[in-house]
């Protein structure tokens, strides 16, 4: 009996996080204790979780039953390769974020630090629970815990009205998603009344009901991932939350939605129809393009990153769509390639997006400024944050030899070598899809140059920026950990694909592990003749040329250098305000992709005393989809309010009428 399983270890981590949270409540306002003891402890537990998950990847599935909740309805938990992979990502990313959070929270920011600690660790624990859950009951309870705890974290600065409204928008979208998920599980259990995942796997649903379940799952998980048209909460909630929370939500929580779709589509549903993949592909492409185009015109650094998350979720949906298309036609090795690309991107997105959000957190602390138009030149006052963020920026822009490039490379490979899909239309569509992917990743590069260049390079646009201080030791530790993740994912793809191999074996019964292992340091998913990529040689090549050029120039000529004022074509009166702003950087994109935006321009006339130039950029979905829905809801609420008279006798009559109606319905 005293045989310890890995899943017990996971439960220990879970309980540990809850204990840390409770301890935080006990030390409610002791900031030093909460931040320098409890958050690092949580981070260590995250590392432990990552280690356990690594061990669990290759071991056989384990189950556990927790007697929580109703007597006859315990929590079923199960640890298989798929959940182990996502637990590994959660553990690794949360370790970095927790280390950063240890140095981040300050006094007097809304919610007291102890309570934040509880919410933060409950959020972590519920994410682990969601990934472990093996029945719909446990899944939904933990899913809701995750939504609620993150809601409270988002509204940490609840005295600001914008933060509150962002929180409400977030929780509304989360609940719309939860309702569709509930319906989805209802369909999946096929009238048997048994809500365990094991039972759902055993049901052979017909094409119609399976498709219904699929569409419901896409809606539910899509609302959490923020795909079009359910994305509106993301650019509101991420900027409102404290930066470590944004990092967790964007880098880690969004991945639970990807997990959910994979779990439902490739594990619980036995049927695989190709048009499901087509649907995911279409959603993913529009989301990715929309996200990146909007990211490039943003002027708030955290909103920019939030739109970039939307883009990355779109790419993940494209990968899953491709997997489903291939799986639908039984082309399992190709499905494994696409799935590997998706899972790889999950890990690299978790690393670079958390890193970038943490970077914005440090900038926010040093300058209390989120508007890109008031930043600039910070790489000189904040070198640590600047250079670490540069690594995240390179990864996010999908540049070799960083992590983001590998997943993009794998994805494009799976597009190119879709050898003869049976439907000609699909074969024709695939180059178009590859073209859009290429465009999206190039635009991501544009956006990231804007992000980094405007914040960290150039001259400070405000005087106060000269006093900006670099991140503290805790913050640096967290960022270094995540940056190491970005670099390692970029340089060691073959080793990392070995970790993904058990997951693809479990879901599509094929894997890249053996094929990739043959070529050693080169990443070659099929054969060396067909395609290969060697990031280490690549990096060494560039560095070798770098060093050789440097030494040769020094040896043959000289290394003399003189400092002076910038030349600027000989115009001496340049000021910091003459640099391109974020708006300026967005202008070409606004022009090229004009149909994407709702734009309102206020242009000054020559006779204005105080000329003002203003552009407001909004998205069409808000105006054409959400505003009508909000109006409708308000209208219905006003109708309902007529029933509310405020007199006891009227309410008693309502109860009486309801009772009579119920009795009639029951007795009939």
């Amino acid at each position, binding site marked *: 009996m005293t045989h310890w399983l890995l899943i017990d270890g996971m439960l220990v981590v879970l309980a540990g996080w809850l204990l840390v949270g409770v301890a935080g409540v006990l030390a409610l306002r002791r900031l030093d204790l909460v931040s320098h003891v409890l958050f690092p402890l949580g981070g260590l537990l995250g590392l432990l979780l990552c280690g356990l998950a690594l061990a669990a990847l290759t071991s056989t599935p384990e189950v556990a039953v927790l007697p929580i909740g109703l007597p006859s309805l315990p929590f079923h938990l199960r640890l298989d390769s798929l959940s182990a992979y996502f637990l590994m990502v959660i553990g690794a990313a949360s370790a970095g974020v927790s280390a950063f959070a240890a140095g981040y929270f300050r006094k007097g920011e809304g919610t007291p630090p102890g309570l934040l600690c509880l919410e933060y660790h409950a959020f972590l624990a519920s994410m682990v629970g969601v990934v472990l859950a093996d029945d719909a009951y446990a899944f939904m309870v933990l899913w809701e815990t995750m939504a609620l705890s993150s809601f409270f974290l988002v509204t940490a600065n609840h005295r600001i009205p914008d933060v509150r409204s962002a929180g409400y928008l977030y929780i509304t979208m989360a609940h719309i998603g939860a309702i569709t998920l509930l319906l989805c599980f209802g369909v999946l259990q096929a009238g048997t009344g048994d809500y365990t995942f094991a039972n759902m796997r055993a049901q052979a649903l017909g094409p119609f009901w399976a498709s219904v379940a699929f569409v419901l799952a896409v809606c539910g998980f899509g609302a959490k991932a923020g795909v079009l048209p359910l994305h509106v909460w993301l650019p509101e909630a991420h900027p409102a939350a404290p930066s470590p929370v944004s990092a967790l939500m964007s880098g880690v929580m969004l991945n639970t939605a990807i997990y959910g779709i994979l779990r439902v589509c490739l594990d619980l549903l036995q049927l695989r129809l190709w048009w499901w993949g087509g649907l995911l592909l279409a959603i993913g492409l529009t989301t990715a393009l929309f996200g990146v185009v909007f990211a490039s015109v943003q002027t708030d650094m955290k909103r920019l990153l939030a739109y970039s998350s939307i883009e990355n979720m779109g790419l993940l949906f494209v990968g899953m769509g491709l997997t489903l298309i291939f799986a639908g036609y039984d082309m399992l090795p190709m499905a494994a390639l696409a799935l590997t690309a998706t899972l790889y991107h999950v890990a690299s997105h978790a690393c670079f997006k958390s890193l970038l959000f943490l970077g914005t957190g440090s900038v926010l602390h040093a300058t209390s400024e989120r508007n890109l138009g008031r930043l600039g030149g910070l790489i000189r006052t904040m070198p640590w944050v600047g250079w670490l963020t540069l690594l995240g920026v*390179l990864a996010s822009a999908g540049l*070799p030899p960083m992590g983001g490039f590998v997943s993009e490379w794998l994805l494009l*490979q799976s597009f190119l070598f879709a050898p003869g899909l049976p439907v000609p239309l699909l*074969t024709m569509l695939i180059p178009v899809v590859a*073209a859009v992917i290429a465009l999206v990743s190039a635009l991501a590069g544009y956006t990231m140059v804007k992000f980094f*260049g405007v914040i960290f390079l150039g001259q400070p646009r405000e005087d106060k920026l000269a006093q900006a201080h670099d991140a503290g030791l805790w913050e640096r530790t967290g960022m270094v950990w995540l940056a190491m993740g970005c670099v390692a994912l970029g340089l060691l793809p073959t080793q990392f694909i070995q970790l993904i191999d058990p997951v693809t074996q479990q879901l599509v019964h094929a894997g890249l592990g053996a094929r990739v292992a043959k070529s050693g340091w080169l990443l070659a998913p099929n054969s*060396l*003749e067909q395609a290969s990529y060697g990031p280490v040689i690549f990096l060494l090549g560039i560095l070798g040329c770098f060093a050789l*050029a440097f030494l040769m*120039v020094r040896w043959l000529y000289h290394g003399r250098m003189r400092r002076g004022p910038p030349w600027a074509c000989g115009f001496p009166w340049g000021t910091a305000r003459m640099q391109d702003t974020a708006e300026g950087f967005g202008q070409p994109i606004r022009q090229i992709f004009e149909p994407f935006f709702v734009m309102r321009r206020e242009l000054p006339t020559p006779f204005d005393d105080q000329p003002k130039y203003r552009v407001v950029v909004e998205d069409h979905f808000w105006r054409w989809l959400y505003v009508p829905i909000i109006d409708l809801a308000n209208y219905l609420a006003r109708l309902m309010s007529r029933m509310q008279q405020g007199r006891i006798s009227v309410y008693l009559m309502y109860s009486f009428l309801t009772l009579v109606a119920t009795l009639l319905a029951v007795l009939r």
Partner: protein
Amino acid sequence: MSFSGLLSQGLEIVIAIALAPLLTGWVNQWRAWLQNRSAPSLLQPYRMLHKLFNKESMVADHASRLFRSAPYVKFGCMVLACAIIPTLSTDLPLAPAADAIALVGLFALARVFISLAAMDIGTAFGTMGARREMLVGFLAEPALLMVLFSASLISHSTSLTTIVETLAHREIAIYPGLPFAGVAFVMVSLAENARVPVDNPATHLELTMLHEALILEYSGRHLALLEWAASLKLFAYSCIGLALFFPWGVAEAQAPQAMLLALPALVLKLAIGGFLLALLETLSAKMRIFRVPEFLATAFLLAVIGMLVHLLLAR
């Protein structure tokens, strides 16, 4: 990894580094002749590099390390790009490290670094140049990728050596997708190498320049490296074009002695290509910057159409 492989790899790098300024000089010479000017010497780019290397480097007071390292990064990227494109032989030990997609990523890496470096000083010209360079880049990059994919679909491979081997040693066949890809490639390479009609390498008029605005703050050895890297980029693009559309004459792994023939073939092809580039530049006028996105979008669509045509007719 054989001896002949190492030899051909080393030879390719050396020839690229040594010949790239010559190609630039050749194009400049022809441009001058075609425009009825008296031409500078063929060796003018080398003299220019030598002069710049001898000069002291002037760096702005507040420039960060990023600014000083960017020329080296760009130079390294371009040398690596020239090393993996099969120009003389397909037996290249470095080639498996980067395929067509990674090659495009390599150009993007160089572009991002140089744009960031231009923003580092924080002058109006530098940031404007960075924005324009990225604008050209985000449209040209996917177009180049699509051009390379058209060739990959024919050879069922993204590895550059396999593409060249397939295209060079095919039996006579007509690939209807390639002409589209060819036109798209010419448009992309004009934009990427800052040539007329997208940019004018001879101008320093601040409102029209792209590439020159980027490197405005550089001087001395940094500028020399950037100029050299620009020549290498032109060389690399010419070699991609030759490899995809005129791959004949490239030696294979089985026949290293064919390299003796490959070198004159390469020089001949580059000479013709350089003349055509000068002709194209003389015949066209520079467009407004606002027309550039349309120009590049056309290239992008042409490349996609090329892939579609291939898929439609090749079955």
